[in-house]
């Protein structure tokens, strides 16, 4: 097998080859670097640190030779959203305003390095992790399944890099859907962990009470592997949980497990026909694995995008207030308009939105009392064409497009529960479709179990884009 073909494999497969001494970290790192350069047109990377990655790979190889294996990530080339600090590399946030070389690693990146992973570089993202920008300082992120289409927002580079095999695994950030959305449109797995499970230290904030960092990978097994390395209490994030982390023990049998289908995510036109059919087919696969599928209701589901966006945008307006006053011309026009508008959200509206967040959480937890996991489509439709304008030419257009965009993911980031995108098929035009599996707080392993059992019975995750 050629070096380039190796990059198409899952992280777990690559890890197994390296631990057996059948694959060199240096060879693998060079293969990912070469491939990343070859597919530069996808605009996945902002900074590709070939020199640093190869130096780290040589160290990892030396450790392997003397039998000092740090764990399953040892020697694996990974990349991270450029929202997180990596010592010695610039943090750009995908925008024009900030470009400072970080003096220390974000905790999640430090933990990847401690686990033996090789940092290939920093990945493109929607400006300031907001999503919705039309112009892109570091190139328009292109979906590897159809380069005229969007890769999702805001961890776009992470979605592209994993789907196009430009790294073995990536980290993304998810405030209001920014891991799950790109993962769905790029046909990969993406986990938003329980809020508080992974330290946010060293990550640029969007909305502190919803910001999370999580893995984006080819398979559920890979996601669990990366999650185990980055999760756990960090004293530098005062709001990270001290709850112990249990190892994930994969098994394929789902007997006794109840899967709740959120009817409002599918009924009344809330999802397109392709997404609905793919998720219904996935539910049948879960039944084959032994699960019992039941209907559950989230009455406020449709409002998830509104509540989530309005809350997080108000937080972002505060974070950006000084740049917005002093350097408004340095923002993409859509980002600037979004932040200016959210600067005007009345205080009483913000308080009302917080109360509705609590009601959403109440409903989600009640549904998770009736089922072990919840399932919805991760995106209502497959990836759209790359946008050249916002299309917000009326109040009604804003309501339809802006709030509707994140409705499927909003209820769960509002509720702080773990949620994962899993690929479940393709459209006739070969665009990925995805389901979202949602678990109770800190029950990531249950989410992994469902996703893993599904992937043991299907092969969507083994398909690669026609690059």
């Amino acid at each position: 097998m050629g070096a380039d073909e190796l990059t198409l494999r899952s992280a777990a497969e690559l890890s197994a080859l390296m631990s057996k001494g059948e694959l060199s970290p240096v060879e693998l790192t060079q293969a990912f670097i070469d491939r990343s350069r070859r597919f530069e047109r996808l605009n996945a990377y902002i900074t590709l640190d070939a020199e640093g990655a190869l130096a780290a790979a040589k160290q990892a190889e030396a450790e392997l030779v003397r039998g000092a294996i740090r764990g399953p990530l040892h020697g694996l080339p990974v990349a991270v959203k450029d929202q997180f600090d990596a010592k010695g590399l610039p943090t750009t946030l995908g925008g024009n305003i900030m470009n400072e070389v970080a003096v220390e690693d974000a905790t999640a990146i430090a933990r990847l390095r401690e686990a033996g992973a090789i940092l290939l570089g920093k990945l493109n993202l929607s400006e300031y992790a907001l999503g919705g920008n039309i112009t892109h300082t570091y190139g328009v992120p292109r979906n590897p399944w159809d380069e005229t289409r969007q890769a999702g927002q805001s961890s776009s580079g992470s979605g592209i890099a994993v789907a196009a095999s430009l790294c073995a695994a990536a980290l993304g950030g998810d405030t209001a859907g920014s891991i799950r959305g790109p993962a769905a449109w790029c046909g990969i797995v993406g986990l938003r962990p329980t809020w508080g499970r992974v330290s946010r230290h060293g990550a640029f904030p969007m909305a502190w009470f919803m910001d999370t960092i999580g893995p984006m990978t080819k398979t559920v097994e890979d996601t669990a592997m990366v999650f185990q390395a980055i999760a756990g209490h960090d004293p530098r994030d005062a709001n990270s949980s001290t709850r112990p982390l249990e190892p994930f023990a994969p098994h394929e049998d789902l007997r006794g497990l109840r899967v709740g289908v959120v009817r409002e995510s599918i009924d009344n036109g809330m999802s397109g026909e392709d997404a609905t059919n793919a998720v219904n087919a996935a539910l049948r696969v879960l039944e084959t694995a032994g699960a019992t599928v039941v209907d559950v209701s989230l009455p406020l589901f449709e409002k998830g995008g509104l509540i989530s966006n309005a809350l997080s945008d108000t937080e972002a307006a505060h974070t950006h207030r000084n740049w917005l006053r002093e350097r408004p011309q340095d923002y993409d026009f859509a980002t600037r308009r979004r932040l200016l508008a959210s600067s005007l959200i009345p205080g009483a509206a913000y308080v009302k939105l917080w109360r509705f967040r609590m009601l959403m959480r109440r409903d989600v937890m009640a549904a998770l009392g009736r089922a072990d996991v919840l399932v919805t489509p991760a995106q209502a439709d497959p990836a759209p064409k790359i946008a050249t304008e916002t299309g917000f030419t009326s109040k009604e257009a804003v309501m339809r497009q802006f709030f509707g965009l994140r409705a499927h993911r909003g209820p769960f980031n509002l509720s702080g529960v773990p949620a994962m995108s899993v690929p479940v098929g393709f459209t006739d035009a070969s665009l990925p479709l995805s389901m979202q599996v949602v678990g109770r707080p800190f029950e990531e392993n249950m989410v992994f179990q469902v996703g893993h059992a599904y992937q043991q019975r299907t092969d969507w995750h083994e398909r690669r884009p026609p690059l």
Partner: protein
Amino acid sequence: MPDMSPEEVRAQLAGLGLAALDDDDLAEVTHRINAINEAVLALDDPDADAAEPMTIFWRSEEG
């Protein structure tokens, strides 16, 4: 609730030390804030007033 006019939006932004860069900016900012205000106003649930906000859920769950 009546929509805000572009001039009202311009004045509110100015009160915060902010400004739209041109008329296109101002028009879209106006559409956006009017959409948010209308949609938030329309949110309705009999339990809303009793739902006291909690920022960090897991703290109460961990005791």
